[in-house]
């Protein structure tokens, strides 16, 4: 025992000379702090035209008037630049990374249904065809619609907690070995169970309801959705992220998306993003409902 203690002490001393990754009091690699998201969402090969904001590809769209302005002043999108500063993760793949050719393994009939669905989203023919983000729905997957609002990672014994400024969302990733919730519980955020593999947090999420969007081109996934996320502490300021998306009702195989999180400048405040309280979207789209 004494020999072990001596050996441990000596080795620990030697290790202390190297840069040691910080740990939380309960022994998890410490990734706590505030970050912005890069990447994660990306286009598939041969995507359908996005009916909601075709500005990227429609020469007649509002954002292509040649004056540098989009539908709104550019400044509204520059909050992310402020948070990210000049930081970049070099040589990082972002977006769909598996399959490499970005041809998603759609079940052909589901791809056809998805393309039909998109055609009815602008104008939305009914509530069901309104994009989920416009309804302030909780984002089961990290969304490009987060407007560069930051994320906070907190860690305590038995769980990692991620707080999103976007739509004041939060998720608890349980590390205590508990089983998933029963299959009758379906949640926008699903149910997340995780464990650490070295400096990678591996998160398994099930129990999604059928109201999860991946992007504007993939406006819904099914309740068969199952994700495995890997958050890897890459360096003192970055977390690499990869998610394997499995949805056997829509796809024949899982596919993978990558991105990363970058620390924000010291002193950055978390700001409330109250969504429904200020939203007039459904009113503008459909008119006043009878009971109001």
């Amino acid at each position, binding site marked *: 025992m004494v020999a072990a203690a001596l050996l441990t002490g000596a080795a620990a001393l030697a290790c202390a000379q190297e840069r040691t990754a910080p740990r939380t009091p309960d022994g998890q690699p410490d990734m706590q702090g*505030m970050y912005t998201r890069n990447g994660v969402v990306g*286009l598939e090969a041969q995507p359908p035209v996005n*009916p*909601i*904001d*075709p*500005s*990227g*590809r429609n020469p*007649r*769209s*509002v*954002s292509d008037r040649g004056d540098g*302005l*989009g*539908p*709104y*002043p*550019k*400044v*509204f*999108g*520059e*909050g*992310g630049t*402020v948070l990210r*500063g*000049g930081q970049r993760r070099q040589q990082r793949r972002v977006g769909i990374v598996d399959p490499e050719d970005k041809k998603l393994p759609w079940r052909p009939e589901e791809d056809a249904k998805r393309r039909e669905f998109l055609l009815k*989203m*602008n*104008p*939305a023919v009914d509530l069901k065809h*309104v*994009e989920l*983000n416009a309804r*302030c729905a909780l984002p089961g997957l990290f969304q*490009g*619609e987060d*407007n*560069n609002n930051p994320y906070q990672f907190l860690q305590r014994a038995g769980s990692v907690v991620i707080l999103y*400024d976007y739509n004041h969302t939060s998720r608890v990733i349980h590390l205590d070995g508990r089983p998933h919730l029963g299959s009758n519980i379906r949640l926008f955020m699903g149910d997340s169970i995780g464990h650490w593999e070295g400096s990678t947090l591996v998160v398994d999420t099930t129990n999604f309801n059928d109201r999860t969007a991946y992007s504007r081109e993939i406006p819904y996934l099914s309740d068969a959705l199952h994700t495995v996320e890997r958050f890897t502490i890459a360096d003192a*300021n970055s977390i690499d992220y990869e998610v394997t998306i499995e949805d056997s009702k829509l796809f024949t195989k899982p596919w993978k998306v990558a991105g990363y999180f970058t*620390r*924000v*400048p*010291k*002193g*950055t405040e978390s*700001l*409330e*993003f*109250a*969504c429904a*309280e*200020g*939203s*007039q*979207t459904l009113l*503008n*789209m459909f008119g006043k409902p009878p009971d109001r």
Partner: protein
Amino acid sequence: MRILSIAVLLGAAALPALAHHSFAAEYDSNKPVTLKGTVTKVEWMNPHIWFYLESKDDAGKTATWQCEGGPPNSLTRQGWTRNSLKPGDQITVEGFRAKDGTNTCNSRSVKMPDGKSVFSGTADDGAPGRRGEAKQE
């Protein structure tokens, strides 16, 4: 094929990440509007700021308009506040009208009488500038 994808990439990079809601589903890009008037109210709230103005058309008729901007959080992080646009300010708004034909618009640009832009993001246009330095935490 390659040129097309580069164009798409460039297009995507140039666009503000103004998401969360369906601009194209609510506003008509074939109905541009230019409004000159006085700000009566500013609602500095998520997911989009709203401001209200009394505007006079060329015939001298007054109308009340409500116009939508982007999300306030990104403005706040860049030093703008709700007082950047105040009741009483005379402004010219360019935007597009809502599809439902009401006096609702988005605000593509907002200018003061001296030509200075509100919410344009460059120091020349009077933006307060960024808060603090971008440092590592």
